[in-house]
């Protein structure tokens, strides 16, 4: 196991075929400690598949995966809890690892759902459940976090707060994050590296590189130009050392 360059998981030309159809192919990417890699792309472009390849859920893959950690936290895109299971939020927090009570409380407080701790999982709203999923994934202090559309169904203010939280977690735990989003806009500020998928890697690089890329623009159309307008606004001032602001 070589950990010289802090790589947690690495995909080499990886792909997955189901019923004779490629879900995704030729993906090469690496998630390093303390870095956030974001996968974007339209529906059916293979984002979740790529995440599942990285996690080792899909076994018969093309190419190869090198995984250098077993401390993994996963927020899947879709999860439905069967009513036959009597399970409360706090039971769910302990699902894959035994965790101290105060750590559970801490994680649930961070995602703003501590009041739901003793509620039955089946009675939560979509957004509440999503917050519980994130709390469960971070509470085991993973080295690698894989978040598949983690804020779906969360209200807009909550969405921004949760992305800020994810950024904070990546800094404080110094863990690597593989984040999936269909919306580059909201994840732009937090991301170190973006991989744009459409059945294959169509482009990758820093958020700005990707947003400027022509293939990205064809995939996302108008939305892409909006991002540029948000991030390429003119700076009419500069920040000086002592908090002073100087007009250009």
């Amino acid at each position, binding site marked *: 196991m070589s950990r010289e360059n802090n790589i947690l998981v690495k995909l080499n030309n990886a792909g997955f075929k189901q019923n004779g159809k490629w879900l995704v192919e030729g993906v090469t990417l690496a998630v390093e400690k303390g870095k956030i890699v974001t996968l974007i792309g339209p529906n059916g472009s293979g984002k979740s598949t790529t995440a*599942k390849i990285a996690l080792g859920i899909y076994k018969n893959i093309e190419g190869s995966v090198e995984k250098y950690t077993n401390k993994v936290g996963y927020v899947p895109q879709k999860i439905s809890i069967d009513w036959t299971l009597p399970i409360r939020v706090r039971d769910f927090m302990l699902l894959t690892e035994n965790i101290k009570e105060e750590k559970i409380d801490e994680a649930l407080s961070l995602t703003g759902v501590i009041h739901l701790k003793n509620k039955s999982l089946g009675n939560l709203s979509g957004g509440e459940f999503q917050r519980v999923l994130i709390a469960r994934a971070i509470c085991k202090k993973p080295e690698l976090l894989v978040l598949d559309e983690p804020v779906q169904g969360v209200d807009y203010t909550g969405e921004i707060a949760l992305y800020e939280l994810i950024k904070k977690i990546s800094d404080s735990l110094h863990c690597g994050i593989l984040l999936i989003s269909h919306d580059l806009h909201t994840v732009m500020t937090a991301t170190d590296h973006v991989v744009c998928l459409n059945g294959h890697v169509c482009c990758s690089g820093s958020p700005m590189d990707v947003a400027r890329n022509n293939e990205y623009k064809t995939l996302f159309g108008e939305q892409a130009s909006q991002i540029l307008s948000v991030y390429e606004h003119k700076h009419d001032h500069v920040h000086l050392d002592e908090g002073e602001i100087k007009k250009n």
Partner: protein
Amino acid sequence: MFDDFFIRALVAGLGIALVTGPLGCFVVWRRLSYFGDTLAHSALLGVTMAYTLELNIALSVFIISSLIALILIQLQKKTNLPGDALLGLLAHSSLAVGLVVIGFLTFIRFDIMGLLFGDILAVTTDDLLIIWTGGAVILLVLKLIWKPLFASTVNYELAEAEGLNPDRAKAIFTILMAAVIAISIKMVGLLLITGMLIIPAAMARNISDSPIKMVIYSIIGGLLSVVLGLFSSLEFNTSSGPSIIMASLILFILSLLNIKQSIKLKN
């Protein structure tokens, strides 16, 4: 102390209830009740094999049931038939083969009713040993695979992604199912074993809000069913299996009343 047939039956039944309680919860959660039926039906074949080859019944049933479970997994991989059709195919054909084989074994006197519905007179001191040591091993193994098994019951991909090896847990659980059927067949009978697994667990589901509570209530329900069932079996001279299952049915109905009351209170 174990000289009395009734004490033996009681000790055997309580041992079985301790094991079927937690296992039954997983049968309910994972929707495996028909799978349990299939294994139980195939047990008849195991019993005939035991008589022909002069093997221990529990051991022979365990071997045949595990074999049927393996065949099922292979058929699932190799055919396009839906799971319930495959289960029905295996359940009824193994039951039929078992009955036909019994027809050929004219030199042995079979108590078919006892096989199907359980017989408290049949429990020997050896059976007690098998039930309690076998039961202890089953519970120990279940405790060891609890985390991956439960996590994959909630969500397979989560369990797999976070490194819990759910496939191995599932395979081990299948073997545990065969084992619990093997140790309880004499007492409960092969037609009613699944009832022993499901009804106390279903009762427990009605009154619990966490997995651990459901397991505990399921065990308590099973123990109560055994005690009530065996006493009434003695009193009314009925088969032990149906008597135990009826007792658990009564507990289940009581648990429904409890729900109604709590709903009324909420309104």
